[in-house]
């Protein structure tokens, strides 16, 4: 019995024409709907919905963003009289590792039998373009639909690592700025809360080192020869990461799932985005690996 990917989908701000400036919720909703449609599933079938995106519209901190997505896609909104099953929604925050962390949680709950069908959704969008500082991630929403299959291996191993010595290299926060140059949000209170993202130049290099050591640890524990990897989906919210990591691990760059040029800095939805350019061919082995703020690394092996 394994946790398998039934479908994945994305929605990008540049392609999404429903509105002129789609927010992160709209992108998450679109990716979630598209993912369900690709798997020929309905929202009512979902037992679990996890959001792993971080940069939400209005920087909303309550309720869980997942519950807003659940309402928008119409997944068991209210309990009908009689039988049926509900949907449980919550958010996971683990930087750019959120989507893989969500998948790991789903894997556990599918294995225990607590849920049968789950979706992990992630999206990020600049909540206040022109006001936020240092926000460089493209607007992308992604969704991955997961279920258990007796006849397939699916996700076979997860590896997690944190490197708190590099915590300063990737920071994002919301803090009050007095008298900002772009005007006050409230006439009586000259200042406003502003989102700031700071990624140090050395982050990319350190993320590579951390990801490499985590991948090698995973390979050691699973007795896996990394040259057997057919596909690598590697993301760290910075350009060039996947190719560089593959090279360090001795995986041919032809096995790298690439991101479109204009989306190479995609944040939490990046693994779903990379999946769009790849095929999880039967019998193939895929290495998923994400690095993010912390520095945190999450890796997983998937046998299609």
């Amino acid at each position, binding site marked *: 019995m394994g946790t398998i990917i039934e479908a994945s989908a994305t929605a990008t701000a540049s392609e999404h024409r429903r509105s002129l400036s789609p927010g992160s919720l709209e992108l998450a909703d679109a990716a979630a709907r598209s993912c369900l449609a690709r798997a020929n599933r309905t929202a009512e079938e979902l037992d679990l919905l996890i959001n792993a995106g971080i940069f939400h519209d209005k920087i909303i901190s309550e309720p869980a963003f997942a519950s807003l997505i659940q309402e928008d896609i119409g997944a068991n909104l*209210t309990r009908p009289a009689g039988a049926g*099953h509900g*949907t449980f929604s919550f958010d996971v925050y683990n930087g750019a590792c959120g989507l893989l962390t969500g998948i790991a949680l789903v894997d556990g709950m599918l*294995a225990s039998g607590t849920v*049968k069908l789950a979706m992990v959704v992630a999206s990020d969008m600049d909540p206040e373009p022109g006001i936020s500082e240092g926000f460089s991630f493209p607007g992308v929403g992604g969704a991955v639909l997961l279920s258990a299959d007796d006849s397939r291996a699916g996700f076979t191993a997860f590896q997690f690592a944190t490197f708190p010595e590099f915590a300063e290299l990737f920071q994002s926060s919301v803090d009050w700025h007095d008298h900002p140059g772009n005007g006050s949000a409230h006439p009586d209170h000259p200042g406003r809360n502003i989102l700031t993202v700071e990624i140090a130049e050395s982050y990319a290099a350190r993320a590579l080192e951390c990801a490499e050591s985590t991948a090698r640890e995973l390979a050691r524990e699973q007795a896996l020869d990394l040259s057997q990897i057919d596909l690598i989906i590697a993301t760290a919210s910075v350009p060039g990461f996947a190719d560089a990591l593959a090279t360090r691990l001795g995986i041919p760059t032809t096995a790298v799932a690439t991101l479109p040029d204009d989306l190479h800095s995609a944040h939490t939805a990046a693994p779903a985005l990379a999946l769009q350019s790849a095929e999880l061919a039967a019998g193939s082995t895929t290495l998923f690996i994400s690095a993010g703020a912390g520095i945190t690394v999450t890796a997983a092996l998937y046998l299609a």
Partner: protein
Amino acid sequence: MGGVSVNSGEHWMALEGGADGSPPGGHYTSRFVGIGASLPERRLGSEELMASTAHRTGIDLERLTGVHERRIAGAGEDSYTLALGAARNALAYAGCAAEDLDVLIVSSITHYVGGLRMQLDPPLSVSLKSALGARRALSFDISNACAGMMTGVFLLNDMIRAGQIRRGMVVSGEYISQLGRNAALEIRTIMDDQLASLTLGDAGAAAILERAPEGAAGIEVAGFTTLAEHSRLCLAFPAKVGRGVSMYSDARTLQEVGIEDTVPMLREALDQAGLEFDQIDYFIPHQTSARAIKKGVQEFTERMGGGPKHVVVTVDEFGNTSSTTHFVALWKYLTEGRFAASDRVLLLSIASGLEVGIVIFKVDQLVERYGHDH
């Protein structure tokens, strides 16, 4: 799972444990072995808070909500320090080391580090894991409004029951009283949508769960669901009037639908545990206001045909400490020696989302860990 259908009409909630042994992947029992808390020393009375409002409101907050006072973070205290204090406190009661933790989940709504700087990246779990020395722990943050810690308990319970891990901690540090400070700047009448913010208080809380020895008591049933039809009844964003966050809620509707939608969930969880509501010794609901708790208990008792032996109310002295309320209440009752080992407790979370979460467990060995033997 073997293709066994566990959620095809049997249960509305995602359920763990219970009379029919579902889900089939649960081979072990998990139990609480340490509940920790961290409360700021500083107290803010409702009278003092209402005296600070920018407009004359005429609201008698204590009479309306039953909140006499709440703790508020002082200098050097924030979400992170409250969480860290609670985590260390829980470890001491559990008698285990941080490196014994397989999983560390941080479930705060507020992520304030260094005052009112809301940290989005890195997740708070990275620095907490490091500060605690939980070097083996898989760590991540979750967010599920006031149901955050209960969600963490649900996740850990599932992992422990299935044998995926042996021990885990969920911890929250809520520096959330600033929502009340921000509300005080804008609130004008009793109908204001920021009224609920005035009840909030700061606290850290932590719970450690581990695999129970065979045959030992522990968590009997845990269940969760999200009734997202009501997802927009309570929303919080960075404030426009100052540091921190402002929260806007339709508290009246939230309370009404919360009670209405919870009744069938309570029934489902109790049925799963093979229990009636009057077999619950201590009922710990989410602490919103004394009036809301009273109304909820009345309604539940009427609809369930009997009520719990005791209802735990801490909102009078701590206010609503958001995701930590159930565990601050548990910690208080444990440290005060108010439970007997044979007591059965039901924790009920009703939170923005609308989240409904239920955990039913036997106190058992926890009593001894707090120096009481009853």
